[in-house]
């Protein structure tokens, strides 16, 4: 090809910014239709109870109230189908039937002209609940006499998948072993926009606006639950104010609100409030990795074994909440040459909000456990913590490398990124040592960790139903502009911009000639949505395929118009140029006008129209594990090294992250600014999870983190500036060599910060950090564990 300017690797302005900056965006809460009603849910105040009766009479007396409904009214609604053969079936019904299993479970819904009046009426509902003993922890759930969440089961185990790999077990004979139990606390994605659903039923068609990451899956699920054909349902994901996995679940309210619109014959809207969000949108993590490693005397890890133990909450979540535990196991060895593993999974139901997806999806948990274990092994063997990593990291000669979990790491800069991150971290630490030398209250430390992230994964493992493909159609309008529609959808990552650039690149047109459409099942081809750092890979694959089909036809038309051979045509600058004949060219507009309007000018064997559709199923993905749980779950694997520099106030236990360094490799970088934004934003969430965020429960199963006063998101003052170094190891099998970057940032902070805190306090001989979040009181306890504090101050 010629050396024309490329859109790849350029920082180009985002096409979505103008509407978002001016107040012109349209989120679900902005959807307003004539006669629209608003809904308010009555949610269970008890963690575990039988529903005896719901009295709606008084509520219905409130003027304007359009209705109050319970599960008994939803006779024409089916529960979510169950697809998974591995786990015990959990029937999810849009409003709770008979029993509630967490505080926040929807029991009834009231509909009124606005939210104020809906809440007035809700205040008048009377609900008879018969309390049952709650189960609030894994230990309680597994106790012999534990109350059962699901009466038809013999225990509270949702899924148990033990692994006993003899090759791994053999490595433990005669070797040093280190072990630990590493717990990543319950927290969640908590986007700034809560969930929300609006629905309208007219002319026998249902239109649903929902703040979702997967509109097509939502439509299919709706067709399973409601008595409607898929063609009579249109799901629109308008501007979505952050997803982070929380909106890659299909929720009961996404059925209830459309059902209400059908039942009442009026549009209905429900906007989740923040309290609802913190108790009824999915929670995440709450995973313990109980691990043991067999290690050679020089620090080389030979095998790891153990269990991933997950507190699933009530398990009433689809796609399944236990998938992150399996993903954690699939990533447990990280970028290290650890030949064997034998790690199983057990996930149990408790009377807490059901767990689901959150950015990172098990990989942050895996990285926390493995990196902590690596630090522990280093300390135990008297090896420097950086050095032990060098001895275990896979290098260029190892690639492609198949991990003990079955992941095929085809490319990467594992050692290079690590060394650069180590160098920069030390430099920064030294700088802070000089700057804070006079501060008597703080001690400084640093930690450097590594991980790999499988991106563009199988969905079969998570959903039991869908697999991994996505699609794209491109329609060239007569004026030479392109309408590109895709099955993925954005929740703020900048996908519109990314795909605009890729379409411009593939079609040889200007960016302003491209319009990307997503998030509307009527206007886009079937796709699985945006999660798992997949969108760039799958959408670009489908887009490239559709582009090449389109170009083939357009080239023939252009050649015909210029009476040249199609083999001599090159496309760039919005034109079809004849190689070797400068000045001889036709524009996309001429070609598209010919194809769509002046079809009399078409070659004889070319049919009218200029539109192409393609699907893309990333190669190499396996959907089912072998007997030891191994599979190549993802299309490709990114790598990164993270370095944290922290100060620890030994008087108060307060930790400040002073500097954060990342060596990041997601293959070819399409838009550096957007990739940096993804990485930095992910790190900020990771810092939140490491130091601040936890969804607390009391011993009775009451949620204690039900507002932003108790659930602390990091603010500008907790997040440092970051140093991001991009490494580019293109993925051999992926379009443009790109690897997804959506989730990577969140994986490193917890282990990096834990290591940094330990280093800061190392001369006090403190205990090991094994849990997140690491709060100020936790750190102070550590200080005391080392006897570092005889008197306050």
């Amino acid at each position, binding site marked *: 090809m010629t050396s024309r300017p490329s859109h790849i690797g350029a920082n180009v302005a985002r096409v979505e910014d103008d509407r978002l900056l001016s107040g012109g965006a349209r989120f679900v809460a902005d959807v307003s239709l004539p006669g629209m009603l608003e809904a308010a849910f*009555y*949610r269970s*105040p*008890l*963690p*575990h*109870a039988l529903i*005896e009766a719901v009295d709606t009479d008084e509520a219905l007396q409130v003027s304007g109230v359009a209705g109050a409904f319970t599960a008994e009214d939803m006779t024409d609604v089916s529960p979510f189908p169950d697809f998974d053969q591995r786990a015990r079936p959990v029937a999810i019904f849009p409003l709770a039937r008979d029993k509630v299993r967490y*505080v926040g479970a929807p029991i009834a819904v009231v509909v009124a002209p606005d*939210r*104020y009046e809906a*809440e*007035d009426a*809700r*205040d*008048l*509902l*009377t*609900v*008879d*609940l*018969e*309390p*049952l*003993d*709650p189960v609030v922890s894994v230990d309680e759930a597994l106790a012999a006499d534990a*109350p059962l969440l699901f009466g038809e089961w013999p225990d509270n185990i949702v899924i148990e998948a033990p692994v006993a790999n003899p090759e791994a077990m053999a490595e433990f004979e005669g070797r040093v072993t280190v072990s630990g139990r590493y717990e990543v606390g319950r927290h969640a994605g908590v986007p700034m926009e809560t969930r929300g659903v609006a629905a309208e039923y007219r002319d026998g068609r249902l239109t649903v606006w929902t703040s979702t990451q997967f509109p097509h899956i939502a439509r299919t699920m709706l067709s399973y639950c409601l008595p409607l054909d898929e063609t009579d349902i249109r799901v629109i994901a308008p501007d979505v104010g952050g997803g982070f996995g929380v909106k890659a679940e299909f929720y009961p309210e996404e059925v209830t609100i459309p059902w209400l619109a059908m039942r009442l014959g009026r549009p209905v809207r429900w906007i989740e*409030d*923040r*309290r609802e969000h913190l108790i009824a949108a999915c929670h995440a993590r709450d995973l313990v990795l109980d691990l043991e490693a067999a290690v050679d005397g020089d620090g080389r890890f030979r095998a790891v074994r153990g269990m991933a133990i997950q507190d699933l909450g009530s398990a009433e979540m689809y796609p399944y909440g236990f998938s992150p535990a399996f993903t954690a196991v699939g990533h447990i060895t990280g970028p290290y040459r650890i030949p064997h593993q034998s790690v199983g999974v057990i996930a149990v139901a408790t009377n807490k909000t059901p767990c689901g997806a959150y950015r990172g999806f098990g990989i942050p948990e895996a990285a926390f456990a493995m990196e902590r274990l690596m630090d522990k092994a280093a300390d135990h063997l008297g090896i420097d913590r950086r050095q032990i990593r060098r001895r275990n990291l896979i290098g260029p000669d190892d690639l492609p490398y198949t991990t003990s979990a079955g992941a095929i790491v085809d490319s990467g800069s594992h050692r290079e990124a690590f060394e650069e991150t180590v160098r920069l971290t030390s430099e920064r630490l030294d700088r802070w040592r000089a700057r804070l030398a006079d501060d008597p*209250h703080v001690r400084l430390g640093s930690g450097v960790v590594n991980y790999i992230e499988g991106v563009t994964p199988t969905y079969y493992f998570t959903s039991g139903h869908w697999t991994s493909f996505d699609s794209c159609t491109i329609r060239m309008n007569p004026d030479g502009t392109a309408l590109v529609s895709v099955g993925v959808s954005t929740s703020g990552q900048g996908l519109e911009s990314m795909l605009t650039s890729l379409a411009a690149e593939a079609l040889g047109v200007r960016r302003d000639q491209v319009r990307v459409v997503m998030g509307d099942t009527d206007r886009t081809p079937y796709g699985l949505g945006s999660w798992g750092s997949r969108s760039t890979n799958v959408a670009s694959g489908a887009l490239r395929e559709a582009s090449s089909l389109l170009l083939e036809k357009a080239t023939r038309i252009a050649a015909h118009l210029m009476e040249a051979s199609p083999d001599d045509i090159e496309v760039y600058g919005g034109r079809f140029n004849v190689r070797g004949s400068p000045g001889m060219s036709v524009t996309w507009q001429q070609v598209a006008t010919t194809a769509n309007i002046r079809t009399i000018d078409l070659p004889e064997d070319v049919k009218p129209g200029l539109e192409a559709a393609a699907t893309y199923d990333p190669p190499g993905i396996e959907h089912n594990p072998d007997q030891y749980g191994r599979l190549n779950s993802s299309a490709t694997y990114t790598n990164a090294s993270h370095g944290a520099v922290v100060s620890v106030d030994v*008087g*108060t*236990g*307060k930790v400040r992250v002073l500097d954060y360094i990342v060596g990041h490799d997601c293959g070819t970088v399409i838009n550096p600014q957007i990739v940096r934004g993804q990485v930095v934003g992910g790190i900020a969430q990771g810092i939140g999870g490491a130091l*601040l965020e*936890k969804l*607390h429960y*009391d011993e*009775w199963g*009451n*949620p*204690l*983190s*039900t507002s932003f*006063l*108790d659930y*602390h998101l*990091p*603010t500008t*003052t*907790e997040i440092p500036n970051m140093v991001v170094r991009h490494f580019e190891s293109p993925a051999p099998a992926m379009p443009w060599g790109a690897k997804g970057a959506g989730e990577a940032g969140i994986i490193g902070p917890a282990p990096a910060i834990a290591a940094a805190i330990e280093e800061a306090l190392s001369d006090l001989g403190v205990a090991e950090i094994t849990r997140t979040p690491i*709060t*100020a*009181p936790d750190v*102070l306890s550590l200080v005391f564990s080392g006897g570092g504090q005889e*008197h*306050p*101050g």
Partner: protein
Amino acid sequence: MGWRGDERGRKCGSRVRNPDDVSVKPPPFKYARPESLDEVLRILSEYNGEARVLAGGQSLIPLLNFRLARPQVLVDIALVRELRQLEVERGVLRVGAAVTQNTVERSSDVARLCPLLTKALPFVGHVQNRVRGTVVGSIAHADPAAEMPAVALALQATMVARSAAGVRKIPADQFFLGPFTTALKPDEMLVEVRFPTSRKTRAAVTEVAPRSGDFAVAGVAGKLVTTRAGKARDVALALFGVGGSPQRLHDVEARLAGQRITGDLLDQVAALASHNARADSEDVHADAGYRAHVSGVLVRRAVEEMTR
């Protein structure tokens, strides 16, 4: 929110209305915006306990949104001119009930004569809260983790309460009775807080909060004067966030009074402060033990700052 069984899992009475705090829009109420204090007091008296004063609303409106407060009437004092005074009169700083935190924070008179107030205000919420929130409202709200009540206590401010029946002056140490509970009667409102002023006083606020702008897990508001001989006098220290009300540390103050501040003395007062702190606040952010310990650390740092 919240259900706690008397014995685990068994609770008497299972017929539940909508539990509190699940709403986000205020319940219906009537609203008045009179021009005179007398009118305000008349309405308070008429609705005896069922009317609430609305000043900045930064604490009250969240409570209304959650329907944790369901007053029949809100009386907005925004138009009451006599509640807008911010002035120094005979050595006393008088802050009226309608004066915003932002106004006080920006006052150079306050910075000069009542520096503890100026130092404490940046810790109160965020700028958007202080633009509307009032100093007096924060004191009347008596959140145990808030800075303003502790400042009032440390400065031995005088609370001026009014009702249709007349005026009461309540010393700060008799005003705060517990979490969100004060000596105000249902038909009374806090119309003014009077802070003693001093040109010589040094002041400090030290606190631990999970993030900036958060309510403190523990904090200290302090003032003292250092004599020419380098000794401390007029020491006052008040803890907040540690227990149900702000608390003066009289023993610590006594230990410091008349002393030259040395490292040894600071060690002693820190230990004493930790020991004497009535730490009974426990929540998801910290237990009582942490709060007690950190109280000592923060007292030490506050005194260091004031004598540096």
